[in-house]
């Protein structure tokens, strides 16, 4: 299969990325090359094979549900691009117009 411009734009939106016009062409070429390379897997019959999902043999890993405060609110906001001392701040979400 081949990706087209429209698909790239749709996928970029899903991934919350912007793809500008100047990079679209080379991105499309690289992504299509990679997808063709991935299509190699179709040569292998996996009809009766279950997907491998978990790489560990550990099952039902549980621990006590203990209330802990491991970082303070101040530390949590330390790396915030914008905050008011209590909350993370973002641009206005609802515009009353």
């Amino acid at each position: 299969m081949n990706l087209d411009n429209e698909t790239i734009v749709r996928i970029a939106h899903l991934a919350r990325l912007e793809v500008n016009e100047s990079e679209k062409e080379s991105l499309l070429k690289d992504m299509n090359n990679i997808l063709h390379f991935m299509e190699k897997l179709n040569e292998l019959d996996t009809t009766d094979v279950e997907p491998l999902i978990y790489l560990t043999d550990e099952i039902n890993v549980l621990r006590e549900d203990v209330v802990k405060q491991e970082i303070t609110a101040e530390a949590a906001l330390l790396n915030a691009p914008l905050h008011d001392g209590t909350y993370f701040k973002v641009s206005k979400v609802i515009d009353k117009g």
Partner: protein
Amino acid sequence: MEKYTTLSSVQQDIKDSKLHLRQLVEAYLQRIEENKHLNAFVEVFAEEARSQAEIVNSRLLDGTAGKLAGMVIGIKDLICYQNHIVSAGSKILDNYRSVFSSTVVERLLAEDAVIIGRQNCDEFAMGGSNENSFHGPVKNNADNSRVPGGSSGGSAVAVQAGLCMASLGTDTGGSVRQPAAFCGVVGLKPTYGRVSRHGVIAYASSFDQVGPITNSVEDAALLLEVIAGHDEYDSTSSTLPVPAYTQQLDFSGKKRIAYLPETLTSEGLDPEVKALTEKTIKELQEAGHAVEPISFPYLDFVVPTYYILTMAEASSNLARYDGVHYGYRSPNATDLESTYKKSRSEGFGAEVKRRILLGSFVLSAGHYDAFYGKAQRVRRVIREKTDEILQDHDFILLPTTPGPAFGIGEKTDDPVTMYLADIFTVQASLAGIPAISLPLGETKTNLPLGIQLIGKRFGESELLAFSKYILNVTKSR
């Protein structure tokens, strides 16, 4: 100052008062300064390393020191260390200061290691050449026009060039082993689940493992002994007890080893790598080990399977970088959606964006089964076949890389060619089993070459002991 290749020799010299740890730290700091052109370190923790050295030196003298006393180590810029910046080689985290330490860092410090700095790597560990770093490419110390490998490129070069004694890297599809091979040092990827991933910035969570890069197998064993073990903060970390690897390094007896003929006829295999592999096989046979060809018919499938799965996992793991809670926020954003989109688009590099896009695609409605589901099935086929080989054999022997370190810029135009450089390392990653790269040779032009040994699940003890033995066998060349 002499170059120390094992921690035990440092500890001995300190106890004999021939060396003060502060001197050793100063020597490394000086070497880092003299080798700035290699771009191995993103940041050096000079003052902290100096004061830690004073403390540890006195502990060594009064007999209260931990196992890693005297170890001067660097950490990949992907491993969180409280109150230190960890950038994952990315603009999006360039000023990110970790508010907690990873479990591996806590374990290093608890045993008195001196952490000397954080090391350059490919952005979010995505790359095999260290050319995808926001901090610029790293140079191989054997030839400055060549890459060090990646993604733990800075970590491998730091050990190669004697800028520290050891490094902690991370290995998702070969990111410890491949740069170790390119730089002529030892690189170990443990079994999936052997080492906690808590506080290690995630790339592909069903693959990522922290692993040591060292000058000697002894130091790799020691570091693994310290960092391995269950952690309540990582539910995939194994509850199996951690063997005393350093006490189990003596090897005797004969082993049964498989080599994969497909790896020796693989397209793009450098003749010198082929010759070194054949020579190693022959030397082991002459030493009385059974080394025999076992077919692995899935070699051409490992790289595409690996990239489908890791891109999918990456697209999910990297969704957290939204410009809101931490990291880079675009000044060009006007509303919430453009905060996400512009921060991510300006903050991530080209390769990371490509992988997020492809990962989102293979997980999207209509394509999930054909790509992601298919790759999960093929992963099981690859793991079962690999486990089957290891039922009858102690190890699998294969080259670490198809060729020696390639030139900076040589493979950047074609991602598929770049990905194919991982062909020999991703098998162990897909199967979740341990593998080590050993510096067993050089090209005629003195570029390091590595040979890889894959071991059984949680079979690090046997793998390390045999690695030490193999280095001795081949030393007599």
